[in-house]
């Protein structure tokens, strides 16, 4: 148990530190790399509470797709961060005020948190221990049975999105393609012409 607690504090500390670095670092590429580190640590936190499927999805989707996309964009755009930062102090009071409001709201929501009596009773009813089933299998079981229709429907939506991207952007330009057979069959005489040039005269 102590090991888990230690691990939690380690991951949480790294997560918070890298999150701060995302907005504090001078180089946007470093920002994205810190973001990836934050994602990894959040995934580790998910593993600690036994949500391994969510952890894997976080890594695959956010690190694998979203962060890499960010990296691409950041590297392609020529952003001058010092210019962007100039108004920082000016906006600080407003930002701090909004942050304060959010914190108060959070305290109010969490302070007024109550569990209904039925829920307390439900917590008493025995369920199988967490170790007896994996949440990946559980998700799969409802996704492919009860929600099969929606799952397939979402698949079609993605197919349409893919078609749309292709329809709107793909252009068949006249690309010069490599024809290996012709290359191999070429004889020296087809491409090279040998001429005799006498001294003192042009071609």
């Amino acid at each position, binding site marked *: 148990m102590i090991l888990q607690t230690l691990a939690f504090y380690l991951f949480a500390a790294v997560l918070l530190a890298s999150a701060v670095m995302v907005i504090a670092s001078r180089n946007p590429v470093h920002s994205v790399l810190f973001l990836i580190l934050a994602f990894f640590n959040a995934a580790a936190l998910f593993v600690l509470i036994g949500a391994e499927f969510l952890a894997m999805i976080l890594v695959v989707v956010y690190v694998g797709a979203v962060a890499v996309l960010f990296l691409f964009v950041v590297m392609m755009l020529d952003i001058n961060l010092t210019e962007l930062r100039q108004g920082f102090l000016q906006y600080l009071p407003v930002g701090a005020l909004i942050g304060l409001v959010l914190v108060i709201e959070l305290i109010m929501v969490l302070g007024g948190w109550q569990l209904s009596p039925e829920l307390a009773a439900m917590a008493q009813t025995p369920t199988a221990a967490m170790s007896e089933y994996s949440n990946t299998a559980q998700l799969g*079981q*409802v996704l492919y*049975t*009860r*929600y*099969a*229709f*929606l799952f*397939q*429907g*979402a698949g*079609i*939506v993605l*197919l*349409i*999105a893919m*078609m*749309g991207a*292709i*329809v*709107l*952007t793909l252009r068949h330009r006249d690309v010069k393609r490599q024809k290996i057979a012709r290359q191999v069959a070429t004889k020296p005489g087809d491409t090279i012409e040998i001429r005799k040039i006498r001294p003192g005269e042009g071609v």
Partner: protein
Amino acid sequence: MNELALSDLQTALPELWLAVAGMALLMLGVFTSNRATRLIVGLAILVFIVAGVLVNTGRAGTAFDGLIIDDTFGAFMKTLILIGSGLTLVMSLGYIRREGMERFEFPVLIVFATLGMFVMVSANDLMSLYIGLEMQSLALYVCAAFQRDSLRSTEAGLKYFVLGAVASGMLLYGASMVYGFTGTTSFTALAAELGNGSDISLGVVVGLVFIAAGLAFKVSAVPFHMWTPDVYEGAPSPVTAFFSIAPKVAAVALLIRVLTGPFGGLFAEWQQIVFLLAVASMLLGAFGAIAQTNIKRLMAYSSIGHVGYILVGLAAGTAEGINGIAIYLATYIAMGIGAWGCILAMRRQQRMVEDISDLAGLSRSNPGLAAAFAIFMFSMAGIPPLAGFFGKFYVFLAAVNAGLYTLAVIGVLTSAVGAFYYIRIVKVMYFDEAGDAFDRPVGRELSWVIGIAAAFTLLFFVYTGPVLDGADAASRSLGIVAGGEAQTAALE
């Protein structure tokens, strides 16, 4: 129930058929490249015909643990959607050949959009509602920007996409509120949970308002209509024709199902919203169209007005009102397809023209087309005995019977204003100085569609049976508890 049963698949057969057929057409298109576009359009129309048979012979009931529902109402609306989608494809054949839109993705996108509309119409859960809505919208965004080299088309697509995403966000926010305060997303469970609307928390009402706002965007009701004129003007004409017909039916059907089903008990709350939307849409539809010179923009305002009249029936909240809406939608499809067919025929020297003044003297250069266009315009104005009159008549009758006299009076007055700009088009065609003639021939498919739509609009009053019976069965299958009737009784 946690297992998939065969009966689930049977209930969802039309949706499954469209999904599988759409993917098959996509594969066919990929392997034949753009050579087989005409073939794929033909096959897509065939797919719609088969889907129509499946819809009307299907097994009724709920499926997938209550995620979707199939009933007479759904079958009626799906049939209308199929007619709209199929005929738009037929009409677009000539256009896509001429205007360099001959890419196989277009019919495939229409098939997938239709699939999304099917899911919307048969949604019985907030989650399936959202999936259906996104499926439809995403396909439509792409269709709007389909002519990617045209600045106006891409602008329309981008505008539609951004505003549509905002609307989806509002809808999702509302759905999350409703889920948070009731603990369920299923329409059946929501209806049981909300009961007759007494003793419900404010959170649910806030959620309902957001959901209604999101859906009002999709039907382009005022004040969520801003995108409509720009998108209608910018998108390629067959796509605009499609926008103004099939997705309207789907969104209206979805709005009816959501408001009368799970939120049936909150009638008093949503009636105010629908009332306001209806009044604002009717007024803006009537007055906004007057100053338009572009026929596509004019049709956009006209469609906003039509949505207003449709919402009058919903504000009544009775089975009679839904009956009126069903009849209205059936006649609206016929008029809409016909009018857009005529707009697609407006070509001069191989180019599309879109100004109302371009129609001048059409009665002399192409009397048939002018007569058909005049029929559609008179019908849209609601002049008896044309089809459009019946839709308005039943909707207003339901409003009067539900005690909504204000709404009915505003409706009649705005119809009179609307008649001005519809009949102005007829005047331009018949009495104005003739300009250059439009290109002949109009095209075989297009003239067939215009002819059939004109015949339906003109002769609807002779044989109203199938539409009226279908609408009646559809409205009764919803099993509305008649919040409106109780309300009216209280008023008297």
